[in-house]
């Protein structure tokens, strides 16, 4: 009986050490930038969910599309109603991995290059995405930043001819996270 209890205790310990190192945020900041001849458009979302497993490198994001705030109300309406159809596809998600997780020493303060690879779903369309980023390891948190571009055509988002000069085919995405350890 005693050995059984001990085995169970060891198993629980093993399980928690494998999955214990999860860092999370719910105030991730993602903003995108579109630069077209007639207009520069920027929108910010400050309520991005993200979780990073320091052991496996698993990295996920969840972004509520209607939380993107634009400078102009009309652009926000067009974005939600015509382009990403937020009522039909309320969330964008990323599921992937930090592929060089073993090169990052999360015990040691410093700045580390990160290679991120995974699947990004926007507007109901999933594409493989590779991006580079940086993790700055601090004593109480990990700051993650990344910048990458995506083509709106890849996500089946069509821009009508009348506003084509105002919206770029290529959108720059910026990610800024302050991940903190998930206390259980």
């Amino acid at each position, binding site marked *: 009986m005693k050995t059984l209890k001990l085995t169970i205790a060891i198993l629980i310990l093993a399980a928690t050490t494998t999955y214990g190192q*999860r860092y*999370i*945020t*719910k*105030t991730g*900041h993602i903003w995108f930038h579109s630069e077209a001849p007639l207009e520069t458009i920027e929108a*910010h979302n*400050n*309520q991005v*969910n*993200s*979780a990073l497993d320091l052991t496996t490198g698993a990295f996920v994001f*969840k*972004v*509520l599309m*209607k*939380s993107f*705030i634009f400078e*102009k*109300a*009309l652009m*926000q309406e067009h974005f939600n109603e015509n382009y990403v159809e*937020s*009522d039909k596809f*309320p*969330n964008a998600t990323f599921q992937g991995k930090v592929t060089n997780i073993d090169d990052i020493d999360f015990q040691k303060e410093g700045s580390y290059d990160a290679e991120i690879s995974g699947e990004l779903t926007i507007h109901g369309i999933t594409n493989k995405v590779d991006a580079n980023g940086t993790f700055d390891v601090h004593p109480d948190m990990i700051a993650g930043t990344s910048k990458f571009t995506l083509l709106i055509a890849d996500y089946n988002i069509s821009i009508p001819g009348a506003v084509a000069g105002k919206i770029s085919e290529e959108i720059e995405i910026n990610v800024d996270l*302050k991940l903190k350890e*998930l206390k259980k």
Partner: protein
Amino acid sequence: MKKLLKIGAGLAVLGLLAAVYIWFFVYNKPHRDYEKADADFIVSAEKIYNQYSGGDSQSKKYLDKVIQIEGIPSYIESTDSTVIVVFAFSSGMFGDEGIRCTMLPNQFDRTRSLSLSENISIKGYCAGYNGTDVILEHCSLVNN
């Protein structure tokens, strides 16, 4: 000929007025003033969270509407650019789950000094549910 000129000038003025109108009131129209807007629904924080997290079809009516929620806040989260009031009811893979209200910038100071033991009312635009939380944007404290 004179008449034609008059009509032409009249049309030009009308066109200009229409352009000015479109520029100011359509193209550059400001965001709705959510602080002054009347709430479409007044509901307890716990109830709206339970409706969304439980997949209740009643939750659909809140989307894009001005919602006033009432409850005792769990904590206030501040980042470099935002202040968020959190009502936590559950927990999951991203931590606490509940309602998260992004405050309007003019509400930051008052929000930071809120007591976390009192019932409060917050009004804002309902952006929906992201699978873990109900998100309200452009929020303000309602005096009570």
